[in-house]
């Protein structure tokens, strides 16, 4: 399979990018003095005295050596899963475990939004792109421009005002919760389900998937499941709207561009009915450039995730990272940057592979 070799080659090409990413995060950490770095290796609940822990940490980080050697130590730690400790009001403990806890929530949010926005954007973009400068097209353009230019946090707040529960008194549309990944009122306080773990920091974790919606369904607790679902609606809608606006712009532009190509004239000259000209000839070609910008859109989606998780108090990796920043947790920030970088790099890889699959002109 040629495609398999292409993927392997692309995977190999990832190595320098990922190494570059680690250099970046390493440099970020080196912006701080040693004593602050060492903090991130200290476990206050341990029986070992703090001064000993500090010395051990200095050794483990290789702080006595020149920076290039420190970098090697740093890489080694990353590989061994030793991403340091953090302590915030949101989460305390090893950074990597925190990522494991909160990452699934972010993935869930992103996947819902991506699927929804693609399902809506492609037919809609095809429709308006095939009728440039008509009323429908103008409306579509205004819509996508407005949501594209709208700050995500503001959109989130507006949706809270319009659709959020208990935001505006007596609002009949206000049926969706505005905070958290589920509502504590949906559990019986006398018999809390065993699969929900309270971390004492106001954050509730669920097992085994760390996704409350899925876990509740697994355990057959439909009250929690429906509460988790309702809590997902507003964050997903916000993210979908911003993403949709972006994709719509590109699908429309792609359609308009493809429609002016010579092969469309050929198709018409063959007598292909207009409906099929659009579907078979224009749209297929229009989606190719759209795929190439999906990587960029994904980056903006990840940016949006941070804001949305903050506004909705949704326990994902964005909120995790933001708390690390606001509460001065070096290793938390490092871990978040790295994980976001890795997601984006992988997303770009997937985009490239999809691109190679749908465009026969790409030789791999």
């Amino acid at each position, binding site marked *: 399979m040629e495609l398999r070799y292409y993927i392997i080659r692309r995977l190999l090409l990832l190595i320098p990018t990922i190494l570059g990413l680690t250099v970046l995060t390493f440099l970020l950490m080196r912006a701080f003095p040693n004593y602050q770095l060492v903090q991130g290796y200290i476990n206050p609940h341990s029986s070992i005295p703090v001064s000993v822990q500090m010395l051990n940490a200095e050794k483990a980080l290789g702080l006595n050596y020149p920076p290039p050697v420190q970098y090697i130590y740093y890489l080694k730690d990353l590989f061994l899963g030793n991403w340091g400790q953090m302590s915030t009001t949101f989460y305390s403990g090893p950074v990597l475990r925190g990522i494991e806890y909160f990452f699934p929530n972010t993935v869930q949010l992103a996947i819902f939004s991506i699927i929804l926005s693609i399902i809506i954007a492609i037919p809609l973009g095809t429709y308006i792109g095939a009728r440039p400068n008509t009323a429908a097209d103008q409306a579509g353009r205004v819509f996508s421009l*407005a949501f594209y230019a709208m*700050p995500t946090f*503001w959109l989130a*707040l507006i949706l809270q005002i319009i659709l959020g529960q208990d935001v505006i008194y007596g609002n009949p549309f206000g049926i969706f919760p505005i905070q958290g990944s589920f509502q504590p009122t949906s559990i019986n306080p006398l018999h809390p389900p065993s699969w929900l773990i309270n971390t004492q920091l106001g954050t509730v974790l669920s097992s085994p998937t760390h996704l409350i919606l899925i876990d509740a369904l697994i355990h057959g607790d439909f009250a929690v499941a429906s509460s988790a679902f309702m809590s997902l609606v507003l964050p997903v809608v916000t993210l979908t709207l911003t993403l949709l606006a972006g994709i719509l712009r590109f699908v429309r532009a792609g359609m308009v561009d493809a429609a002016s190509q010579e092969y469309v004239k050929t198709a018409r000259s063959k007598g292909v009915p207009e409906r099929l000209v659009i579907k078979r000839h224009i749209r297929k070609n229009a989606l190719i450039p759209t795929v190439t910008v999906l990587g960029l859109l994904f980056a903006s989606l990840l*940016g949006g995730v*941070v804001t949305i998780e903050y506004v909705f108090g949704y326990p994902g990796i964005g909120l995790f*990272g933001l708390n690390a920043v606001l509460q001065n947790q070096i290793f938390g*920030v490092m871990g978040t940057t790295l994980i976001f970088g890795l997601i984006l790099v992988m997303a*770009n890889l997937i985009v490239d592979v999809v691109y190679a699959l749908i465009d026969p002109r790409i030789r791999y």
Partner: protein
Amino acid sequence: MVLRKSMRTPDVVVKKRPRLEDTIYTAKLFFKNRLAFVGFVITMIYFAIAVIDEVYPQWLGVSNLNSMANWVPALSSNVPTAPTLSHGWMYIFGTTQFLVPIFPVMLAALKFDIGYSLLIVTIGALFGLAVGTIAGYFGKIFDEILMRVTDIFFSVPFIVLAFAISYALGRSLNTVIIALIIIWWPIYARLTRGLALSTRSMKYVEAATASGSSGMRNVVVHVIPNVLSPVFVQISLDLGSIVQIFATLYFLSVIQGSQLLPELGNMISRGQTYLPQGIWWPVVIPGIFLLIFTVSINLMGDGLRDVLDPKLRR
């Protein structure tokens, strides 16, 4: 009769229009696009307000725009919270935290939002332009390094990178601005690199090189003028994004130390606490004000791209 070779008909030679006439034509085309024109006008109004803020801050009723605290009314006065005109134009949109009137603060915010964003984009663009042109024109190792470095920048989402860098630098207003510049220049470096590469292979630049014109001279005479208009379009499109990111960073309280700066994201963040009381205007109104700006500047940028990109020009 035996006829062999093809007849070569001369291609229609388009006379090069003088520059001024070309500019006027471009402007005409631009203003013909109604949406772009509206975007341009509104953008210019916002810019004008920002300039007036700078030269004559007193028009907003205070002598110094740097802190929202300057608008806090004297305790005695009976200040409305909801939008009303009965207390003069400043209270037309009501008040926010500390009974600060929304409207004048919003206008004052333009000085900072637009001012800082312009600063960030301009420095980022200049630096990126320099690096990108050199990499694109001289190529080789320099180009390779540039591509790899920018790859790394593009491999982290902007907001997260902004967090990380501003955190490492200290989370003050100044360091956030520096962080945003650091994040923004690679876009321009990539853009100009591509343009410089294609300019280099153009016939007349090749001819200039062949006739002994030096590299640096070519860059200044041929490459830079060719990359300027796409860079300009990119700047106008980016200004909207930067304003958004800047406001977002304020909203998320990533920027420390100037929590009273009149800034739209900051204002919305402050207004947010009143939402549960049904007080929506401190959130909605500054947001709409910001949205009008980002939409307008995007309309303007799209219009500019349409007329400056020869491929799209009809």
